[in-house]
């Protein structure tokens, strides 16, 4: 297999966007082509989850390839729930590594704020098992809540730990001009003050409003290329060194150990194995914190910290920018926002900035190895990517 490099990146603001979905996908793609200094693209993958249901548009890839005037290049959409973004990157990786294509554009987009928050929650809830979960009114926040309660009981994670993740990531987002939430928060304001119960009500006990990522519109793009092409691009080399994916039971109640996220553990292990690296080699990570609990649990399952000790590393400040292993310097899903199809690509976008050394105020010092975890369903389909600076 050939080595695969990221030669260009682009992103939109993650917020409410008033332009059409195809343009949300195309705008970051134009930025990425400028970033790479290159307009020749062999193939396009578009990551998206909801175009048919939310935006009443199907065949999104055909619309995007045309609006970018990249026809007759091949194009298709990749749908893998909230892990669509990293799945599309994985597919692009295989296309370049195999030698089928030399330059592949992977762009992701979602326009979820076309509908109200309840409809958006309902749309995402269609990920759950139709007969064993969905009919009961189960949503992603309620699955995360039931998981959180088990984690609290078994490992001593508290609402304060969850709030610490929210404060860290939402305040990291203040250093990211593209992030959705641009509001400083404190433990006092969301947990301790007399107003906290009003500011921060329960969404699904024990998870509160500030434990959940916002519903966002947004797009992000990376361009992948062979080494021969990458060497001609005037950007620091960033190699996509490992891709790993794993699945788990559709219904969450079927998992043998209900506090495990085995697909995260297995996807990360495969990604590290392909890269020839270990979790201890990672300098910066973007983990899928759709709910605050997930950052803590994923930080354990991918191998950064022992099982049940992620919240202790958080307490020690290890996961802050400036800590020994910064997690979600971009703000994560919690602060940057979560336009589902774009999220996995936005994670990669941040890691490329970090490894190039141009992440500005949120730069992790001398970052050489970066890692992303993109979490689909409630952990039933997970894709992990490992990136390395230089060769």
């Amino acid at each position: 297999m050939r080595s695969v490099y990221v030669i260009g990146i682009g992103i939109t603001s993650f917020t409410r966007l008033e332009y059409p979905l195809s343009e949300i996908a195309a705008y970051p793609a134009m930025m990425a082509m400028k970033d790479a200094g290159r307009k020749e693209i062999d193939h396009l993958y578009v990551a998206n989850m909801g175009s048919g249901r939310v935006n009443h548009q199907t065949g999104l890839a055909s619309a995007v390839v045309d609006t970018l005037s990249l026809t007759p290049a091949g194009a298709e959409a990749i749908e893998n729930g909230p892990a669509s973004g990293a799945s599309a990157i994985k597919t692009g990786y295989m296309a370049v590594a195999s030698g089928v294509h030399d330059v592949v554009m992977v762009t992701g987009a979602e326009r979820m704020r076309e509908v109200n928050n309840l409809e958006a929650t309902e749309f995402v809830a269609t990920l759950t098992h139709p007969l064993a979960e969905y009919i009961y009114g189960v949503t992603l926040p309620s699955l995360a809540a039931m998981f959180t309660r088990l984690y609290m009981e078994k490992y001593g994670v508290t609402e304060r730990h969850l709030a610490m993740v929210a404060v860290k990531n939402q305040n990291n987002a203040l250093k990211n001009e593209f992030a959705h939430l641009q509001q400083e928060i404190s433990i006092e304001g969301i947990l301790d003050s007399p107003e906290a119960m009003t500011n921060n009500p329960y969404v699904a006990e024990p998870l509160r409003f500030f434990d959940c990522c916002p519903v966002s519109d947004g797009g992000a793009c990376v361009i992948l290329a062979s080494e021969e092409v990458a060497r001609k691009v005037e950007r620091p080399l960033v190699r996509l060194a490992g891709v790993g994916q794993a699945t788990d039971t559709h219904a969450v109640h079927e998992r043998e150990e209900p506090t495990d996220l085995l697909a995260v553990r297995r996807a990360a292990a495969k990604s590290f194995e392909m890269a020839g690296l270990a979790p201890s080699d990672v300098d910066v990570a973007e983990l899928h914190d759709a709910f605050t609990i997930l950052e803590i649990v994923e930080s354990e399952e991918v191998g950064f910290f022992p099982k049940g000790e992620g919240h202790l590393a958080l307490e020690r400040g290890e996961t802050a920018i400036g800590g020994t292993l910064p997690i979600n310097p971009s703000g994560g899903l919690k602060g940057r926002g979560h336009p589902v199809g774009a999220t996995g690509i936005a994670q990669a976008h941040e890691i490329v900035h970090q490894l190039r050394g141009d992440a500005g105020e949120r730069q992790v010092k001398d970052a050489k190895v970066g890692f992303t975890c993109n979490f689909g369903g409630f952990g039933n389909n997970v894709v992990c990517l490992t990136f390395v600076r230089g060769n």
Partner: protein
Amino acid sequence: MAREIYAYKCRKCGHTHYPYRMVCKSCGENEHNEFDQVPLPKRGKLLTWTRAYSLPADFEVPSLGLAIVELENGIRMTGQLRVDDPRMGMDVRGEVEIVRREGYDERYGMVFYEA
């Protein structure tokens, strides 16, 4: 007659699945429909629960109790929970009732009460 929710017992190895899957997870048996339907027990222990406030539009209630219950035979299932003061590990009993209305469509599922 009391309504039931069914689990699926593999005719080859006896492994019981809930919900249905087409190939046995335990032995890989893949002769389609080689499963016997067995009613899920109605009693079990509350494994975990939540009270959810942000609900899909079909639910015209301010909040909804949801739970994962470990049934007497060790199989787990997700259902609705109508208990005032839920405690992890408490004994619960299930009734099959209407759990969702989608227009004129009525969907039946398990609702758990304090045993």
